[in-house]
């Protein structure tokens, strides 16, 4: 290559050409700008016009829906709910794995797309309360989501369904039908249900204010719902309606329910529930595998005879109770006299708990404790009568010093029912060992069993699954070892037990509190499931 300097001078032709081009660009640029602006303008108009919000959600909801569920901000809560330990704690037979899988499933769509397709709460409703097969989902989209849906129609993965002009779309893979009205996405697995939802006559639609009230969140729940039953529905014989609110956190689930008893049922059980009002409840004795605290405002004898009236059971009549209670003329008192005299005065406050299972007894024996309120005079009278009964013929043994009544049967102390008066009632246990431990020398230890629960209601239940399952497995193992369990060999029982224990150890406790307004037939209930943190991790399927 030569190093000789070269000089160039711009030719007019060239310079002129550049100028010419510049002019041309400016000329064309102006045109392009115009086109772009015009396109954007038209596009914007189309965007705003095609995504205009010209429908209300209540248009797709009939006024007489039997059930409705509102899922709050599902996309935001999805991850927390899906990762919750609660799913691992629930029995697999309930199909929860499917729900968890759906929540954990990758949709294949970016989050921003999903967030635009479903904004806020979704509303699910229908009438088939047995199978929920006619559920219709109503979700609100953003304008972008609406536009994306319109663009997605051209992707080929969506089938058009003219449906008499309703313009349905069908997603073959999950077999879902949907339609878009304004910014609302209306979807259902049942084509007919979707068509019904899109063609509700204005007079049959849910009123806007009612709908708005329904959608209003009452607390921090993730899902809330309402089910209204007809009398021929599965639960309709008992309930008119049930509403609920559910929240699922990382290690806990809380369910609040409100149910209304059907009048017919309320009348039938008038004697049992008629005057029932929520009461301050008392804690069951501590350390139980499972415990119950109840107060229905009446004694056990009244409950017994009330059941007879409700169901027409022969042995639940006041006459039968009186027969059992009466000591025969020959003085041959027996178990019926003991049972009716000790148990009859109990109530209205009754606490029952399963303290343990003694697997070392002659047969594995559940150790049950009943602590019940009772009229002091009735208790005194009962013990006085029993003390007067000839010891040689009475099957029980009365320790008059400690005022404890024992009923030796076969085996050891865990199969020796024991009763003793304490404070305002009676403590009864199927196990002498447990009764003695709770009562102490002078009955003072039992006062630990009288702490207030701090809540008002009629029924409180608490279950600790792990010790309960451990006890049952240990008892079951003893039967399995002697080929005493149907369907299980010792080996298959161990396999099953491992599974049961694995499930049980995931749950810390299960509690339920129910309150009944006897005059209105309304029941309020709260259920809580607490899991052990880190006791098992859900995995995406």
């Amino acid at each position, binding site marked *: 290559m030569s190093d000789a300097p070269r000089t160039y001078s711009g030719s007019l032709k060239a310079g002129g050409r550049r100028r010419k081009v510049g002019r041309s660009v400016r000329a064309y640029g102006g045109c392009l700008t115009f086109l772009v602006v015009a396109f954007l303008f038209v596009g914007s108009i189309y965007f705003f016009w095609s995504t205009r919000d010209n429908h209300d959600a209540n248009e797709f909801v009939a006024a007489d829906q039997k059930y409705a569920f509102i899922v709050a901000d599902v996309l935001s809560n999805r991850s927390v709910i899906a990762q919750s330990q609660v799913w691992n704690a629930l029995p697999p037979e309930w199909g929860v794995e499917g729900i968890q899988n759906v929540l954990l499933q990758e949709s294949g769509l970016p989050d921003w797309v999903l967030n635009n397709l479903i904004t806020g709460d979704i509303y699910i409703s229908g009438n088939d309360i047995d199978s929920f097969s006619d559920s219709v989902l109503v979700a609100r989209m953003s304008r972008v989501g609406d536009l994306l849906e319109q663009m997605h129609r051209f992707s080929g993965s969506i089938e058009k369904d003219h449906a008499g002009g309703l313009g349905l779309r069908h997603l073959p893979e999950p077999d879902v039908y949907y339609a878009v009205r304004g910014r609302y996405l209306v979807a259902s697995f049942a084509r007919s249900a979707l068509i019904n939802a899109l063609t509700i006559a204005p007079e049959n639609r849910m009123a806007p204010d009612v709908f708005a009230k329904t959608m209003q969140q009452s607390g921090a729940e993730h899902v809330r719902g309402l089910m209204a039953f007809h009398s021929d529905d599965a639960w309709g014989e008992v309930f008119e309606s049930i509403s609920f609110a559910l929240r699922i956190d990382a290690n806990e689930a809380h369910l609040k329910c409100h149910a209304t008893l059907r009048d017919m049922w309320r009348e039938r059980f008038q004697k049992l529930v008629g005057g029932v009002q929520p009461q301050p409840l008392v804690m069951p004795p501590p350390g139980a595998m499972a415990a119950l605290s109840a107060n229905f405002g009446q004694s056990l004898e009244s409950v017994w005879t009330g059941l007879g009236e409700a169901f027409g059971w022969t042995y639940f009549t006041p006459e039968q109770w009186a027969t059992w209670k009466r000591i025969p003329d020959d003085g041959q008192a027996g178990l019926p006299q003991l049972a009716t005299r000790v148990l009859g005065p109990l109530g209205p406050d009754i606490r029952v708990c399963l303290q343990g299972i003694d697997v070392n007894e002659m047969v594995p024996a559940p150790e049950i404790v009943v602590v019940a309120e009772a009229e002091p005079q009735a208790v005194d009278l009962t013990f006085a009568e029993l003390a007067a009964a000839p010891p040689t013929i009475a099957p029980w043994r009365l320790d008059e010093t400690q005022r404890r009544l024992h009923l030796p049967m076969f085996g050891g102390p865990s199969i020796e029912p024991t009763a003793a008066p304490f404070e305002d009632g009676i403590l009864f246990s199927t196990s002498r060992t447990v009764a003695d431990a709770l009562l102490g020398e002078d009955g003072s230890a039992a006062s630990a069993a009288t702490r207030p629960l701090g809540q008002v209601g009629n029924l409180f239940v608490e279950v600790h699954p792990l010790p309960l399952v451990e006890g049952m497995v240990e008892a079951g193992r003893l039967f399995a*070892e002697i080929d005493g369990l149907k369907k299980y060999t010792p080996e298959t029982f161990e396999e099953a037990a491992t599974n049961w224990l694995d499930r049980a150890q995931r749950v810390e406790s299960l509690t339920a509190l129910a309150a009944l307004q006897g005059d209105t037939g309304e029941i309020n209930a709260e259920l809580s499931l607490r899991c052990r943190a880190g006791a098992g991790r859900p995995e995406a399927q």
Partner: protein
Amino acid sequence: MALRRGANRRTSIPLWWASLLIAVLLWTPLPAQALEAGAAKLPITPPLGTPLNGYYARLGQGAEQVHDPVWVRCLYLADDDTKLFLVNADLCIINRELRERVLELAPREVPRENIILTATHNHSAQGAMCRNLLWRSITGRYMPEVLEQTAGAFAQVMHEALQNSTRAAIGYGTATQDNLTTNRRFPNGPRDSQIGVLRVEDSDGNAIVIAANIAAHPTTVDGDDFMSISADYPGYYYTALEALSNPGCVAMFFNGAEGDQRPGNPERKADGWDLTESIGRLLATRVKQLANTITCTEQPISLARKNAVLPLTMADSFLPTTTILQTLEIGDLLMTFIPGEPCVDIGLELRRRALARGYASQFTVGLANDHAMYFVPRELYGQRIYESGMNFYGPGIEDWFYREFDELMTRGEPAAVPAPPGEPALEERKSVLYMRIAGSPYEMGFQQGAALGETLRANYAREVVARCESGEWVPDSGLWPLGAGFINKTPLALLRLGIGARPLLAGLSTETLSMLEGMADGAQLPFDALWLVQCLPTYAATATEETGYPLEQMYLTPFCTMFAAVGDRAGAEELLVGRNLDWPAAEAPLVVEVRPDTGHRYLQIGFFWNLGVFTGMNDAGVVACVERVEAFGQPTLDGPPVEVVLSEVLREADTLNEAIALMESAKHVRGYSVLLAGADAAGAAIIEYNGKVQVRRPTNGIILGVTPEARKEQDEETDAALPVLTVDELRYQRVLDLLNEERIIGPEEIEAVLMDRQAGRTGKDQIRNAWTRHSVVFEPRELRLRVAVQGEDGEMSEFETFSLSEAGK
């Protein structure tokens, strides 16, 4: 050269002396090996409230007082080759949990397999040590702390015995007693009159241990003291003997073959502690007297041990399938340790065999190392006594012990164990399956069981186990309905059935019993299961009232046709028998030729599962057939099924009269009709069991299983008296009509009658019907029979001829 010879002499002298010395050393018996012994005792009295072992009647409730302490006592013995602990405890049994824990805690100086744990079978000491739920019904609730304390005391007493060990000598002696023990089931039943005594003394002649061995249940504590803790009569024995002996002497007690033995009452004491004390004191006095005569020396000791597989049992859910057998030889004495409660006959037989093998004496020690319940001799197995009901390993358990201990004895030669009999082949002859079994009764049974085991096991599973599993055969009375739905009651229901079938063995010959045992072993079924299968038809016929089970659903009651032509009517044959077996269950027929070592050969035609004879003939020309006759009533459960009795008749009877006599003696049979025929007399008879035993003879040369006797009944419409026949009579009337068509009846005519399907009839009133499984024509004079069987297609095969004559083999 001379020098060399002298040198040789010098070297050969020391060699000669050395050789002589070696020879003398070899010739002279070695001195006894150095023996060391030590003993110790510790109380193991449990705390009050601990459930006592031994009686269901205590309902698992706790002890209320201590009358006297209960003990564990230990003897440590060691020579150059063997170290062992011999432990006796005042417990009811040595259960597995206790044994395992004791072996974990025991001193390491003695190998685990050299620890012998025995219980006195005291019924007034702690239970509470069994984890097994079924055992808890006797031992009470499981108290791990009681197990731990008791096992700890066992270990501690071993440690102390070891620490107390010193140079010792040992000896033994025996004496007889005629009133210290007695048979608790039979007033003059067998008893063991031997008192065995073992004496161990130190180098100064002071007794370290004096141990007694007699056979009697320590069950004298009763009445108001039922809930008291006590060592029973062994406790008084210990106290009395130790008072009579030098200080430091430890009294020990080893119970013998006490299954059916209890203490006597020589001093005529009333029940109570006086009686307990009397027995203990008298025993101690006798033992001390005997011990004083024993010269102790340094005798060699040796132990043998085997983990033995027990015979099959239906109780395998809660009883062991393997157990520990041990023997201890002390000089010429053999001690045999049995893991349970043998009845005295077994102990006596073990002694007889030990003496025959060259031992001078033998002690049987029961309740050792394990507890597999009672062991009764074969002849008691079918008796309705407690010990038999608690024997779960079949009637052959005694032989099992003899065989196993034969191996463990070191003196003499063990009896040769016969090789298992071969499995016979099934032959098919014109669609008729045939099998030949031969040998001793056990061998024949084994062959049949081995060849047909699959069918037998399937029958048992289908007809018995499945019905218990479905709940159909689980009783609905007593405690049976109790318990949650998930409880599997099948193992107990099977056990109940098995035990319930044992009384049907009463009166059975030892040959048949042995054959059944062989069949069970061959089929790999527990004996009770095999016997249950044999009894199913009888159970079926007894239906629900006596058994409590709806057994009629198992096999519908069989109905049959059987008849004989005798004398001139049978022409030259002189005797012909025809027989159809109508059996509602569709089971494959089989012809079995039985060739016993002793007794008659016979052919029986039945099914794959039955040992008894429904249809058969022996080589003396005796024919036997059986038919259920509902009008005669329900069969009893007081003896073997009639078909099993018939198998004995064919094996034993030479003549018709002998056969009749044998069947007339079967008083327990009811509800059947049996046809017997004999070539010797060219005659036949029907034995009717209708509450009485009646023998019916042929009329006009013909005899029928059921004689048609038309009764007159008023017809409601015409008011005329019309003859009425039962279905069975209708069938037999047809037989009679057909036979009467011929003046002389030959085998072909019999065949024709058996194959008759009269038009217009479809059920039981037909001679050959849908349920006819086999048809047989017997020619007893020729020792020949022709058999046709129903095939899978429901059609009868051609008649195939079988012969029992030598020429026809």
